[in-house]
């Protein structure tokens, strides 16, 4: 098991594995999205307090969850990279960041569109909203920092430190609705108390959450392959890849 893990920690072995895996996650993401949207938009009943406006939840909550999960995944890779000095870790961090930034943006965007009709404001400086905004800036900072440093190993190190330090913000987002008196409502789903939502609404939300999760994995795997190609371009195994040869032929003609 451990041996297998170390085997795939090398970019040369991870490249074909990621190539095989991303379509699987893409198919799962598509199927779950269709199912989740069907349940959420056509089956789930009208909410007795928020009317049809609550349906924003089926994209708002999954995007918000993934914005936190992806950052934690980046911090995990950063920790691995900083302690074991594995090359793949930095590449995974960079492959994850853009999708995380998109999820954080969507969380804020859909939140604003939900806040306006329900609270009467697009934005308030509430602990939950502010910490999510900080998360969005952390993603942008990570992307800017890693692309500003030319030496990839140094860029990975700097990015890794930012990912690790910034990860402290994730529990702040998650618990903000408990720690402070916020306008944002408390968690609809909690590990300790179960759910306060109707069964079908909860089901649709969880399926959409899973769909976003699968999408994020598919995107990261797809993106990391491009990063591996560029970083390992001087290696013989890259030159031997059929897709590289095909591209070279295409460019000759």
């Amino acid at each position: 098991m451990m041996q297998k893990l170390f085997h795939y920690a090398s970019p040369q072995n991870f490249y074909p594995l990621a190539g095989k895996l991303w379509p699987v996650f893409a198919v799962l993401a598509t199927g779950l999205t269709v199912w989740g949207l069907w349940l959420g938009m056509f089956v789930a009943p009208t909410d007795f307090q928020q009317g049809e406006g609550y349906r924003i939840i089926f994209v708002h909550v999954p995007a918000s969850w993934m914005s936190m999960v992806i950052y934690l995944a980046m911090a995990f890779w950063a920790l691995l990279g900083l302690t074991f000095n594995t090359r793949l870790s930095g590449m995974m961090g960079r492959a994850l960041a853009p999708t995380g930034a998109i999820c954080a943006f969507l969380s804020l965007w859909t939140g604003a569109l939900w806040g306006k009709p329900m609270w009467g404001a697009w934005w308030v400086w509430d602990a939950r909203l502010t910490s999510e905004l900080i998360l969005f800036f952390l993603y942008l900072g990570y992307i800017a920092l890693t692309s500003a440093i030319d030496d990839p190993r140094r860029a990975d190190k700097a990015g890794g430190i930012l990912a690790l330090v910034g990860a402290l913000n994730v529990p702040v987002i998650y618990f903000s609705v408990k720690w402070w008196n916020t306008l944002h409502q408390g968690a609809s789903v909690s590990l300790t108390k179960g759910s306060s939502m109707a069964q079908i609404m909860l089901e649709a939300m969880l399926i959409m959450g899973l769909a976003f999760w699968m999408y994020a994995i598919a995107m990261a795997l797809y993106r990391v392959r491009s990063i591996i190609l560029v970083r390992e371009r001087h290696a013989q195994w890259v030159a031997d890849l059929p897709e590289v040869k095909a591209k070279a032929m295409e460019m000759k003609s």
Partner: protein
Amino acid sequence: MIWNNWSDFWAMGGYGVYVWGSFGVSAALICIEMVWVRQARNKALSQVAQELAAAQTQGKDWQG
């Protein structure tokens, strides 16, 4: 199915702008990201192929 007709569905009980504004932008960003990663892969492949070709011709010059 909870809707009587499509116009009810699109109206979302008066919340149409907010609901479709959320789903629309989400769908758009996901589509943009998918195009974007494809372009990045194409760029990466071109860069690798180009450097490889340059290295090969350089090698030949040096031999010749």
